[in-house]
């Protein structure tokens, strides 16, 4: 299948005096929701600046939607939306004003920009607050307003820099839900974060970088492997279960109030269920454990080192 890649980085290198921010990155990424993962200082923000044409790479080149950033940065920027990590909105203006002005700055006619600003603020859940000054917004509302200004120009790709930073659990959940929906609107997402859980929740594709070097790039599902471990939650009866399983020849350990058992096949899975039933224990959860992205990240980084 030959889909035009959304992003094509070839030998991308960016050096600052004394620091190599990006080191020979070569990547092709398909349209969709992409998580860009790395610790603080891994080179995520530098990559965003280069994609926007606001920083020139020391070596290599970048294409966004088939357009060479070095040759036509303006053309690339009119296809991108950008949501920075830090606060970046004028505090004394209303959300409607700010978002429609940014719509116009993206090249939309004034009328269309106002209409779209209203639609997008509705989409991100700020419909009732849109005539209030941004200075009075909560962190969650400001994040939504930032997302709205990134979307108002109808971008092909939005660059989200730590979109869940500073949000409470509910705000984070809602932000991730919004990011997740962008994919269904035909907008590709490149989300930089150091929270692997966020990526696991919404991204189809993961790019991990560390110290400016590519660690791994692949579909999220392919990085989550089965481990042969089963997690069982039986409340505080963990020791009873571990002992009973040991008698039946199943290796199990209690950890963090849960039991983790190593199973070889489906028959052993059935055995687990039967043992819990025989002991008359409450069964709250019985699940196959996947590696988390954290583990994949740590393992791949280790392999590279």
């Amino acid at each position, binding site marked *: 299948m030959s889909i035009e890649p959304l992003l094509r980085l070839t030998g991308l290198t960016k050096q600052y005096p004394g620091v190599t921010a990006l080191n020979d990155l070569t990547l092709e990424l398909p349209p969709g929701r992409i998580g860009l993962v790395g610790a603080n200082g891994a080179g995520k923000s530098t990559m965003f600046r280069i994609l926007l*044409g606001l920083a020139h790479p020391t070596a290599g080149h970048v294409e966004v939607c088939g357009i060479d950033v070095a040759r036509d940065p*303006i053309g690339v*920027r*009119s296809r991108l939306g950008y949501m920075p990590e830090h606060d*970046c909105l004028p505090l*004394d*203006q209303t959300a409607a004003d700010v978002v429609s002005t940014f719509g116009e*700055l993206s090249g939309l006619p004034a009328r*269309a920009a106002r209409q779209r600003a209203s639609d997008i603020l509705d989409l991100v859940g700020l419909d009732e607050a849109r005539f209030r000054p941004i200075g009075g917004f909560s962190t969650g509302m400001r994040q939504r307003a930032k997302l709205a200004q990134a979307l108002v120009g109808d971008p092909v790709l939005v660059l989200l820099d730590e979109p869940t930073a500073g949000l409470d659990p509910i705000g984070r959940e809602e932000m991730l839900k919004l990011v997740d929906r962008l994919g269904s*609107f035909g907008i590709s997402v490149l989300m930089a974060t150091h929270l692997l859980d966020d990526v696991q929740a919404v991204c189809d594709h993961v790019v991990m970088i560390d110290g400016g070097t590519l660690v791994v790039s692949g579909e999220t599902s392919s990085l989550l492997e089965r481990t042969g471990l089963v997690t069982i939650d039986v409340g505080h009866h963990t020791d009873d279960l571990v002992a009973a399983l040991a008698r039946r020849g199943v290796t199990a350990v209690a950890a963090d109030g849960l039991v983790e058992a190593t199973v070889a096949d489906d028959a052993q899975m059935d055995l687990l269920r039967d043992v819990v039933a025989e002991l008359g224990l409450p069964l709250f959860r019985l699940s196959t454990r996947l590696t988390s992205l954290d583990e994949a990240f740590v393992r791949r980084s280790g392999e590279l080192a």
Partner: protein
Amino acid sequence: MSAPTSSVGSDSADSGRGAVYDRGYRPYEGPRGRRGAATLALYKASMRRALGLRRTWRQKVAPFVLLGVVTVPAVVNVGIGYVLRDRFEPFEIVTYREYVGVSAALLLFVALVAPDVICPDRRQKVLPLMFARPLLGTDYVVAKVGAIGTILFAFSFLPQVVLFVGNMLVSDAALDYFTGHLDVLWKVPLAVLVLSMYYAAIGCALASLTDRRIVAGASVIGLFLLTSISSGIIVGDSQFEGGSYGALLNVLGMPLHLRDVIFLGHIDPSSALSGVGGGGWLALACYLLVLGASSAVLWWRYRWVER
């Protein structure tokens, strides 16, 4: 109005009694401008901000009070002219040339508005968002200086229109007055343009150096006070003895020398620069120098792309 089917990715509750429609997302398929459109949009947004439009009434007070204040001389002149229309032939408390100088009061406006239009973008970190759009640093500078320059031009020009039309109407023969003052029709706009672009560029350049409005405002006032006072000290009484180069130090006064050249064809005899050989050319050179320095500062502060 917005049918859920017309939008991408919309979910609708499938209930018989009523439905909550999520309007979803509609891609934009209309026309799309590039740098020119973005610059124009920023220009308009900056003008709105400077005039206090779409802002609280308090933000509207300063610009419009100032417009009122600079119009007062015209109204007074026309009013007295009307009252005394049968007694004295030509009545003038303020000439068109002097009136351009009155607009120098708009310096206060620059000290107030240029920082307000420039500083918050840097302080509130809005600049990265702007430069993530089809907009270059030079476009940003053109839009901001253009917006302030336009308002300064309008605020200096409108009172002149009041004065001209008023004088014409109170004169004995309006048509004769008009044909007799045709030169004003190009001299006033040109002099006002020279003045407004100059103040706008200096105001924006100083404001671009800091992200604090109060500091920027104080620097604008400070620069003009300092240079005019020090120039005054150096010049002393020398205007009675053939002028002094010290007059060129007065940054505030530079466009006024050019105004004199535009209206009179030479430096005003009562000016401190009068008597200095090639004074007009020197004033023009200094004017361009200050304008060039301001542009260089602005270019340097908004060369956004790092190499």
